[in-house]
């Protein structure tokens, strides 16, 4: 099955490969998939806590070309989006943009899961910090 030009482009020139310190206050990390299933995605967002805007995003992926392309595309789309907008990204949009074949749709699902996991992780960190900050202020 030949791959689409879009998949190949992201595979050959992946955007935003790398990592943020997962312990960073403003970092949200989503780690989804499993090695024994053949794909693991780690997607990270760097959020401006004042505006709730994603200022930067990075990924690392173990998986097939479509999985790599899906996560690369996701990081591109995440930059500049608010957390709410990020949560609205649908796997079907990734399928469309990359022209993923039916057998690779699960790669886009995984990318959507990774986005949601990263946002959730950031939000949980923020919530965990709230009481502490309140205490300091009080």
């Amino acid at each position, binding site marked *: 099955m030949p791959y689409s030009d879009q998949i190949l482009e992201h595979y050959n020139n992946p955007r935003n490969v790398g990592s943020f310190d997962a312990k960073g206050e403003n970092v949200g990390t989503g780690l989804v998939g*499993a090695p024994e299933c053949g794909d*693991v995605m780690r997607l990270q967002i760097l959020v401006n806590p004042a505006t709730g805007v994603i200022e930067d995003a990075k990924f690392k992926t173990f998986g*097939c070309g479509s999985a790599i392309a899906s996560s690369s595309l996701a990081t591109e789309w995440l930059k500049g989006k608010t957390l709410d907008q990020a949560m609205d990204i649908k796997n079907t949009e990734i399928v469309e943009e990359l022209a993923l074949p039916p057998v690779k749709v699960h790669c886009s699902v995984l990318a959507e899961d990774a986005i949601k996991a990263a946002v959730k992780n950031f939000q949980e960190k923020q919530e965990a910090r709230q009481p502490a900050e309140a205490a300091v202020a009080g």
Partner: protein
Amino acid sequence: MLKLPIYMDNNSTTRTDPRVVEAMLPYFTEQYGNAASRSHPFGWAAEKAVDDARDQIGKLIGATGKEIIFTSGATESTNLALKGVAAMYKKKGNHIVTQVTEHKATLDTAKRLERDGVQVTYLPVDKFGRVSADQVRDALTDKTILVSIMMANNEIGTVQPVADIGKVCKERGVLFHTDAVQAVGKLPIDVQAMGIDLLSLSGHKMYGPKGIGGLYVRKKDPRVRLEPIIDGGGHERGMRSGTLPVPLIVGLGKAAELCRSEMADEIKRTYALRERLRSRIMDNLPESYLNGHPTERLPGNANISFAYVEGEGLMMGIKDVAVSSGSACTSASLEPSYVLRALGVGDELAHSSIRFGLGRFNTEEEVDFVSDLVVREVTRLREMSPLYEMAQAGVDLKSIQWAGH
């Protein structure tokens, strides 16, 4: 000059040798008679060509030409061997012994026979993919009618101790079939010395044409009989009816002759290429592992797992090289290769495997190009792999609760 793409998937199929094609051509347009036509020269010429091919094939495996039955390929040969024996010898018994890394042609045939009441023992293999003659001996019962153990595995290249198994079968008077598709023409075979009663072979794995195969059926000590699966005009001693595809048969015969006359050199050559490829890759990539047996393996096969990199993803990076992966990252099947699993290779390493199949037409230049490319791409993909980063940071990947999907 290096020509892309490079073909290194010779365990899947092989290029038909141009000398084979040349030998076949006259049998399409000039000598196009039916080998069963006894009444005119067209038929005689065809029959002679078929008999010559039988002899060429027989000679390659230490058999006589008369013991070769032509089929459409090894899948059919194996179906005929297993089903034919099960039906013909059902009064004698209903037990078959095989092993878990056989090709699907054997495993699925065995499964169908199980549905029809045949009992099948699937022997486990060791970490190199081998069964032992002792395992076979221990599995035999007084109801066993057939042992079917492949000579060499198509994925990992492991060669089974066929001669030892043949000896056990002879001692116990049990028929022995071997799927020798990957070994015929690549390794010396002697059905007498190895105690083989039935042997499947395939044209397209030995530089012959696709759509033709053979089944060696022993005629003497013992005379093996088979219930046919295809009925009709009674061709091939009644075991496989249907007009013989003379050009394909001529091609298979020529392919066999070439394999035989060039085998000694070809083994040395493909082995040297394989070792060059293997060492250039593995010496430069830590945590790469050879799957299958280190020495008891097909000369041209190297199946290597690259930790932290997914096989199919790697294949995209080396897309100018035709190879196979033990990973199947599709929604239909997230299962990695059952062969690698049977060796106890972890699923994550099974997903990271690439099979390189070197053959007659590969060159040293190609090997160098491919090994450099693989090293470069694995390194690039590891930089992109969260698993690699975690492992480098000392995280035990097994300790993580993965959210599988």
